[in-house]
């Protein structure tokens, strides 16, 4: 590999590139699922790619490949050259020489891969069995699946940078359906981590079946405006759809309502939002970002006040600040963007029960649908299909479905009334986003 890098940089230099960088990603993936006590799907892969970029006449050109053959060097340099030639944006571009210190993170657990495959299969079999035995209304375990990923990332450039990260994690998840009196409801549960012994059949079985069973017979309700409580991971999913409003790229492009709001109150005082790339249990953790800048913990919103945007080198330079270490690249196929890493709403002191007890007449939302479609990150308006329970006199009441919850994200932030102590992260969404239970003063519920 090192010989090829040398050859690539040499070829780039001859073409006129003044600074060059490559980003290498190698991934190993194992995934399996069990269906009716048989290994239904099993998949194993090793795969990788190389991203190349270089500066020529002040413009950055990008290219990538998954095939490392004799033509790869030529193709990478030529494509990057042509791509640089059509760039019209005049922003200053740079390739980073590196930081003094990078946080040392222990993100790779060698024990995970050493757990025999048969033990992982047994876990899924046990999970399926446990769920099926739980209740006669369980119709089917549609998924009992395990995925294990190992990722190695290295960035090397002509400016002296050579950094790498190695991480692994596993996700186990289950999807179930329950049926009774002609009604079908589904349930979903997951666990994430890189320690196999922390995964729990009992937890997954309980979590996936509870809501599906309780929701059987859920009906729509009359439209109303009322207090709304979001389940922790439902709010996390909701927040993840709006993480982009904190991106300096969106702010600078006039696509974020947070533009011009730094150090202003944008949310209720209880609301603090933190991005922590050093979380050892976080799946977006890393010691450096996609430009090789050392990552750091950033408080985005502190007690309701907007403290910073997410920056990469380019957006930071434009504003005369330093990068927050949030340069991102979807994979070796992407160009540099900006994104959150492990972002979460800081928990407060209230228990879930205390929050529900504070609601006289409202809705408890446990899941939201269509987050990619039913909202506008730009305007903040949202109208989302959801389901959950009525809350009557401080207690959870009948299940409700076929309703939508509508409002505006920026108004909602100010209408946050209570924040729970039960932080949970969601695996849905772009960044790894977490939240405790959250109560909102008022939102529109539409039903019949």
């Amino acid at each position, binding site marked *: 590999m090192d010989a090829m890098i040398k050859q690539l940089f040499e070829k780039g230099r001859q073409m006129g590139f003044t600074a060059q960088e490559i980003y290498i990603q190698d991934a190993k993936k194992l995934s399996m699922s069990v269906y009716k006590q048989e290994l239904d799907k099993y998949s194993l892969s090793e795969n990788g790619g190389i*991203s190349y970029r270089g500066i020529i006449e002040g413009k950055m050109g990008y290219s990538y490949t998954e*095939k490392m053959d004799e033509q790869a060097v030529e193709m990478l340099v030529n494509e990057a050259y042509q791509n640089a030639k059509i760039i019209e944006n005049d922003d200053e571009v740079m390739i980073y020489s590196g930081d003094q210190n990078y946080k040392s993170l222990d993100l790779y657990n060698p024990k995970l891969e050493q757990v025999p495959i048969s033990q992982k299969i047994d876990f899924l079999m046990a999970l399926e069995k446990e769920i099926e035995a739980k209740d006669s209304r369980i119709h089917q375990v549609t998924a009992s699946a395990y995925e294990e990923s190992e990722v190695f990332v290295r960035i090397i450039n002509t400016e002296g940078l050579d950094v790498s990260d190695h991480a692994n994690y596993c996700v186990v998840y289950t999807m179930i359906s329950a049926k009774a009196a002609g009604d079908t409801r589904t349930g979903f549960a997951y666990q994430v981590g890189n320690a196999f012994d922390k995964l729990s059949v009992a937890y997954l079985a309980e979590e996936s079946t509870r809501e599906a069973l309780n929701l059987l017979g859920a009906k729509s309700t009359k439209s109303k405006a009322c207090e709304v409580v979001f389940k922790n991971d439902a709010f996390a999913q909701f927040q993840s759809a709006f993480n982009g409003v904190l991106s300096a790229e969106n702010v600078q492009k006039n696509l974020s309502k947070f533009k011009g709001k730094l150090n202003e109150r944008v949310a209720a005082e209880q609301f603090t939002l933190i991005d922590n790339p050093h979380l050892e249990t976080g799946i977006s953790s890393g010691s450096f970002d996609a430009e090789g800048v050392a990552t750091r913990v950033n408080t985005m919103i502190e007690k309701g006040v907007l403290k910073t945007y997410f920056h990469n080198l380019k957006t930071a330079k434009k504003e005369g600040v330093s990068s927050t270490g949030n340069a991102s690249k979807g994979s070796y196929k992407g160009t540099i963007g900006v994104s959150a890493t492990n972002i979460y709403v800081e928990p407060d002191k209230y228990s879930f029960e205390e929050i529900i007890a504070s609601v006289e007449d409202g809705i408890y939302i446990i899941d939201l649908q269509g987050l990619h479609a039913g909202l506008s990150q730009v305007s903040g308006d949202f109208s989302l299909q959801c389901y959950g329970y009525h809350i009557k006199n401080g207690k959870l009441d009948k299940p409700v479905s076929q*309703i939508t919850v509508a409002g505006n994200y920026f108004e909602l932030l100010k209408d946050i009334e209570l924040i729970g102590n039960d932080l949970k992260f969601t695996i849905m969404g772009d960044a790894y986003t977490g939240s405790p239970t959250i109560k909102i003063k008022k939102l529109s519920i539409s039903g*019949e």
Partner: protein
Amino acid sequence: MIEKNIIHDVLIAAVSTGGDFAEIFVEDRFNTAIEMTMGKVEKSLSGRDFGVGIRIFKGTNSVYTYTSHSDKEHLIKVAKKAAEAIKGMPLDLNFDLQLASPEIIHPIAIRPRNVEKSIKVELMRRGYEQAAKASQSIKQVVVNYMDYEQKVLIANTEGSFVKDMRTRTRYMINAVAENEKGLQTGRAGKGSGKGFELYDQIDVEALGREASRVALTMMDAKAAPSGKFPVIIDNRFGGVIFHEACGHGLEATSVAKGESVFSDKMGQRIASEIVNAVDDGTVLNEWGSASFDDEGTPTKRNVLIENGVLKGFMIDKLNARRMNMDITGSSRRQSYKFAPTSRMTNTYILNGTHTFDEMVTSVPFGLYAKNLGGGSVNTSTGEFNFAVQEGYLIENGKITRPVKGATLIGTGLEILEKIEMISNNFGSDEGMCGSVSGSIPAGLGQPALKVSEITVGGREEA
């Protein structure tokens, strides 16, 4: 891409532990993507995807593996490693790989890869300029252009051996309008399975004007009413309602395990009897078309619903075993990184007999959903949601004023039953559809149709 004798040996290695079927999928794809913001090219990326996926069946159990390396020794090693997950005696499968020629060829006049990037940039600029000059209120215009060429080789132990090349190009424009009431976005675009000749046939300047028109219209819109009332869903992208609310539930992925609400409804009436729907991967140069599906089966026109009666599912090889039914030539995957499964290709509701005006006139109070955003569906419960990007109120049989922020929710079965009128203005559109086998180009389309009532989630009470 890879020689036939190597393919043969890899397939043999894959069934060496008792597998009764093995398949190899080789993909070599070249991508180009350019993004222009406010008339300036900000991003341009190109590159090559390459990899090999190997799949093995034993009964209804399946094993999948993929790799980016394609030398013979490595592929055989990978195939054998995957085969370890299957336990049994080798079946001694005999097969002879004969390259099959396609029945349907989607001709490409100009390969997008051979077109200079500067020509693509000019095309983008023309759309941008029209969008930007529509109004002072247009504050942001982003134009995205992409094309790709995906060469595939698919072979299996049944002796099937095919090669296909899928060319796609897409042009999308997003405009943001801003006034004191806030920001609103508008989108327009065109995607196709044609080559670069597409741009001689479409008017990119009109797309620019359209994106801004939508943003400006919605900027002045009031919040949509909420409640249950008649909705007219317009043609073209309106087809996303059928795609989400019904199409996904007809994919074997959810039918085979008895999960879909449509699982036990074959031959039964599931829709109002004026509804006829097909999934057709053969439409020439369409967004979701190909000569062969990703299992190497020639694509087909599959009737899904005829006069309201459920006539067909979309079925892939693995689920065909579970369901004991025939495959439908619509097994698809995003790339070699995904095992293929039954997916939609181009999914259409066919023309009815009414005119659009007759439908509007018949509504005393309702919503006209001219343009839809995306949506999603839970195939187990049939519950769907989708966003109305451009909507209008209908009052006393007339389209009156624009409304924003509406979301349509319901279940597939309920809405199919409530389709009351179908017009004769069929139009198609394009989307990206995400599901178990990744994100793939999916064509959709319908004539305008009237649903007697749908729950509309808005912010104001009706």
